[in-house]
Structures are given as structure tokens and as C-alpha cells.
């Protein structure tokens, strides 16, 4: 297939996934900021949201301070932010249109319908209720697109490239949530901060839709080191780094088999997966959770670059 087509499919999937991640982060931020201060401490959650979205510098040059109004505007509706939810859907739709023939009718309807409906929300919500509805709608739009792709696409290179986009973006998102909140996640032998931190930990789990999953996997109350374990090493947790890399290796292998050739992208993905498979939480904590996550974010970005050089240019 054309490199440009593959590139468009890859980014189309990435942008839809990014919009969904942003919506989930904002939903959790909104929730935490409504708790009484005694329960979560005097942190600026809106600032964390901006950091998690990875656009602190761009935000700072547009707004004097991070509060509910400015952060929602920047992350959801701003045309100046190329990664705002609006921009994500607009770019996704432009990419979809450019590769219209590589999409199924269901996928096109999903993304085009989302783009058309986006106008309904204008330049921002008029109330918190409406904002919540907006965030639900963003997540449902992403689910609909993802489900359409899963159910209707031929299992060929077009499908695999779009899956690569989903998983690289998802891994990046989970890693960023961990990166911003790493100071809350402490190893088992350290003194736990008391009830104050529970709501922060629960927020981390909620932002990857894993609060219920946590209880099913560990069957105990929320412990920070187990949250780290769930989000980094647990293969059965669909947004964990390990799970994303199982999927990336698998999709890259499918491409390599179809094309009859392995390359740098396959090697890179396998190396990252091996590191995740061979790690244990105690070691990660010992060597520094922050350093580990930073290293992962860099590796994940590099995989994106290598995939691009090998197939998309």
C-alpha cells in the first residue's frame, strides 16, 4: 500500500485515541477538583492535566494560569492547540478523507459523524453538566470508531498500521499519566501517606478505566505499588504498557510476515517488550520509577520514528 495511506491510517487512529485519552483525563480532573480540599490536598489538578497532555509549554504561552476554564478551553476546544480534542477530531477526519478508499463505510461514518456533531458543542460547554456530556460523547465516538475498525476492516496491512497508531498512542498516554503522578506511587516498604492519597490513587485508576479492574486483579484495597504494577507490567490490563507492547509486537509481526521482511521497527518493539517482561516492580522502584517511565516514553517515541522511517515515508 501507499506509504501516505499507511501514514494517514496510523495518525487517524492515533488522533482518535488521543481525543479519548484527553476526555478521560479531564473527566477525572473534574471529579478530583470537586472533592473537598481535605481529601486531596492543595494540588493544582488542572496543571497536572496540562502536564499529562504533554503541552505545558504551549499552554503557558497562551494563558496566564491553569484553571478550570483555561484548561478546558485549551485541551478541548482551542484551535491553537494541535492536540485539543477538537483538533484531534478535525485532523482525524482530514486524514480519513484523504484515505477514504482505505476505510470501511462504517469507519468513515463514525469519524465523519463525529466531526459533524462536533459543531453542536460550539466553542465550549455552557455548564458542567454539558461538559460532562461532551466528555462522554468524545469517549463514545472513539469507541464507535475503534469498534467499526475492529469489526469491519480486512485483516491486512491497512488494519495493522492503524492498530500501531492506537497502541503507540495508548502506551504514551498511560506512561504520561504515570509520569505526572509518579510521586504518589511508592514502593511497598515505604510509609503510605494515609487516607489523603486514596482519592489520588483512585483518580489514576479511573483515568485509564481501571478502578474496577484493579479490584478484580488484586482483590485488595488500593495500594500504590500495585497500581504501578497494573499500569506497567500487567499484560491482561488493556491500557498497561506491557499489554500495548504485546499488541505492537504482534501487529508488527503481522506486517513483517505479509511483507516477508523484518526490520528495525520489529526489533525495537521486541526489545521494549522484553524489558517490560523481564522487569519486576521492586527493581523498577529501586532504580527509580520516574527514570523508568521517562526512559519508556523516549523508547516509545523512538519506536514511532522507526515505524515511520521503515514504512510511512
Amino acid at each position, binding site marked *: *500500500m*501507499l506509504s501516505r*495511506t499507511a501514514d494517514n491510517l496510523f495518525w487517524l487512529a492515533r488522533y482518535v485515541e488521543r481525543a479519548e485519552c484527553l476526555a478521560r483525563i479531564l473527566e477525572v480532573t473534574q471529579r478530583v477538583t470537586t472533592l473537598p480540599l481535605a481529601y486531596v490536598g492543595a494540588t493544582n489538578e488542572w496543571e497536572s492535566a496540562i502536564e499529562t497532555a504533554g503541552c505545558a509549554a504551549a499552554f503557558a504561552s497562551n494563558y496566564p494560569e491553569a484553571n478550570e476554564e483555561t484548561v478546558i478551553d485549551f485541551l478541548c476546544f482551542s484551535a491553537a492547540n494541535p492536540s485539543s480534542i477538537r483538533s484531534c477530531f478535525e485532523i482525524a477526519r482530514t486524514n480519513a*478523507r*484523504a484515505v477514504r*478508499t482505505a476505510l470501511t463505510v462504517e469507519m468513515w461514518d463514525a469519524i465523519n459523524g463525529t466531526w459533524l456533531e462536533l459543531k453542536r458543542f460550539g466553542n465550549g460547554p455552557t455548564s458542567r453538566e454539558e461538559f460532562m456530556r461532551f466528555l462522554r460523547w468524545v469517549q463514545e465516538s472513539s469507541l464507535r470508531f475503534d469498534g467499526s475498525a475492529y469489526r469491519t476492516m480486512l485483516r491486512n496491512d491497512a488494519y495493522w498500521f492503524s492498530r500501531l497508531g492506537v497502541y503507540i498512542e495508548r502506551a504514551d498516554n498511560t506512561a504520561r499519566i504515570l509520569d505526572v503522578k509518579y510521586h504518589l506511587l511508592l514502593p511497598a516498604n515505604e510509609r503510605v501517606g494515609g487516607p489523603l492519597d486514596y482519592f489520588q490513587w483512585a483518580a489514576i485508576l479511573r483515568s485509564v478505566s481501571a478502578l474496577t479492574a484493579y479490584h478484580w486483579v488484586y482483590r485488595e484495597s488500593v495500594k500504590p505499588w500495585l497500581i504501578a504494577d497494573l499500569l506497567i507490567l500487567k499484560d491482561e490490563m488493556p491500557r498497561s504498557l506491557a499489554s500495548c507492547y504485546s499488541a505492537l509486537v504482534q501487529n508488527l509481526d503481522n506486517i513483517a510476515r505479509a511483507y516477508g521482511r523484518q526490520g528495525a521497527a520489529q526489533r525495537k518493539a521486541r526489545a521494549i517488550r522484553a524489558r517490560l517482561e523481564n522487569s519486576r516492580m521492586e527493581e523498577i522502584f529501586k532504580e527509580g520509577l520516574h527514570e523508568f517511565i521517562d526512559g519508556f516514553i523516549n523508547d516509545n517515541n523512538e519506536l514511532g520514528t522507526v515505524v515511520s522511517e521503515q514504512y510511512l515515508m
Partner: protein
Amino acid sequence: MYGQRVPHDIYVHVGGIDIIRVDAESFYVLEDNARTPSGVSYMLENREIMLRLFPELFARHRVAPVENYPDELLATLKSVAPSTANSDPTVVLLTPGVYNSAYYEHSFLADKLGVELVEGRDLFVKDELVFMRTTQGPKRVDVIYRRIDDDFLDPLTFRPDSALGVPGLMSSYHAGHVTLANAVGTGIADDKAVYSYMPKIVKFYLGQEPILKNVPTWCCREADHLAYVLDHLEELVVKEVHGSGGYGMMIGPKSDKATIAAFRAKLKAGPKNFIAQPTLALSTCPTCVEEGVAPRHVDLRPFVLTGRDRIRIVPGGLTRVALQKGSLVVNSSQGGGTKDTWVLDT
């Protein structure tokens, strides 16, 4: 292109001939479109919609199908691959991109043909061969069904500011390693001044009278024609020779004095830019409009495919309809519509 041979000596692989009917027996060729005629997707989609909405009509009348057009087009394009191509030549459709008004048609056709829909940046030229960038590395391209105008094809040869084209494409074309459909320069054949000589050209090269008549045309570059045209402006249609899309024309009986005066001045200033034709009574077709069903003027554009092996034409075409009451301008850019066209099998 002077002195340049094109693969298999075929220039117009896809021709769109605009035909009008003025009475029960008389059909005229109104215009030849020899560059990149568009609208065939409407022919195909109109039929699909009619089949869905009026299955009963199709059961009662034996309507010849048009759905094999993409198949015929692909066969035509493959047949004209350059001699250096391998036995299963690679065909692509070259589009200016999503911002082009005909992009829908481009993607629709590429989909039906099963060929890659490429933009200029997907192609590159190396050692006078054309390649496309694929996820499996460069792949040679043999036939380009291009839907970009000549001027934008190759910034090294034509407009240097063209971002839509492929640098070096013309060098490959000159070397005979790629077929462009249609060939470069075919605009000369659908120029409205050349049109006026078409009956003579047919007679000279084929030794026979054309089967379809031309609309009588005054070529304003000739002094006696110009004099006649200036005397009868109120009853004639005046067209710019390079105009298309219904722009740059004046319909005498429907124009006010000021417009006619303006065209009179233009004609005197640059007569060779204009031709004139009698205002013909285009046939009408019952059409659904707001007030109900009413007659509206139509013309017909069949698509003629010319390959190395033979000429192909599907029994149908694009019927364009002027939706404004009394209007003779059927161009979609001027608010015209389209209709499904039936050829009945008897």
C-alpha cells in the same frame, strides 16, 4: 510535445463528448472534452440510486447496464502501458488531492478500479522511471490516469510553483517509460476554435462525412465570420475558445443590452478568442422541480474509451440538466444537475 510520440499513438484515452438533440432526428456534437473529462461517477451512482428507488421500472424496461465502466476503463488503461512495462502493468490514478472539487470522483473511481489513488508527493522519478512510495519500498508505475491539468504535472517542465505534480515526470514520459492518460497537450483538440474545423478534419483524415453533425460555428478570427457575428449578436451564443464550465460565455437572446455591448467590445478587441453559434433549442426532459414535474433542458456526455486493442463505450452517459427554468447552461459549476440515462435493449 512537438515531435514526441506517445505510447501506441493514442492521445485521448478517455473522451467525453457533449451531445445535444434539437429535434426528433438531429443530434449535434456540442463540445469535445479531450483533457480530463469528469462526471462518470455520477453516471454510475445515478444508476445505482435509480435501481434502488425504482426496481419496478427496471423490471419492465430492458435497460442496458453501465456498471462495467470501471472494468472497461481498467482494461483500456492496461492496454496502453508502455512497451517497457511488465505483463501486468501498474496503473494509478493521480489526483490533485482532497481540496479538488472532483476528489469524490477520483476516490470513487480508484476504489472501483482497484488502483492506488496517488498524489504528486506519492510519486518520484528515478533514472527516467516513475515509482510510487509504498510501505514495501518503491514500486514502479506504468500508467497514470491523471486528473490534474497539464500545467501542474511536472514543476520542472511546466509551472515551477506546482506542488501537485511530480518533478521529472515529463522526462520519463519523453523516454517512453510511462503512459499518461490523457496525453499532454490534448487541450488543443477540445479548443473551441479547433472544434469549428472538426468536420473538415474528419473528412480529411477519414475520407467520410462525420456521422454526428457539428453545431454550425462562426470562428471570429476570420473577418467575414466576425462581421456576421457582430451583426447578429442578439441571436447567437458567444463562447471564449479556452473557456469551460459555462464561464466566459454569452447567450444573446437571454442577455441584456449592456452584456451584449460588453461582448461586442471584447469581440472587437480580441476576435480570435471567440467563437459563436446559433442559439439551439436543446431538448428537454421531464424533471422534478419544486412546482412539480416540468421540462428542463439537457445534454448528454457519453464517455469514449480508446485503448490499444479497441474502442470501448458503455451504453449510457452523463445527462446534465439545467435546473433553472429556461436555462441552457447545464454545467454543474453553474447549478446544473444530472440524470440517469437509459439505453433500451430492444
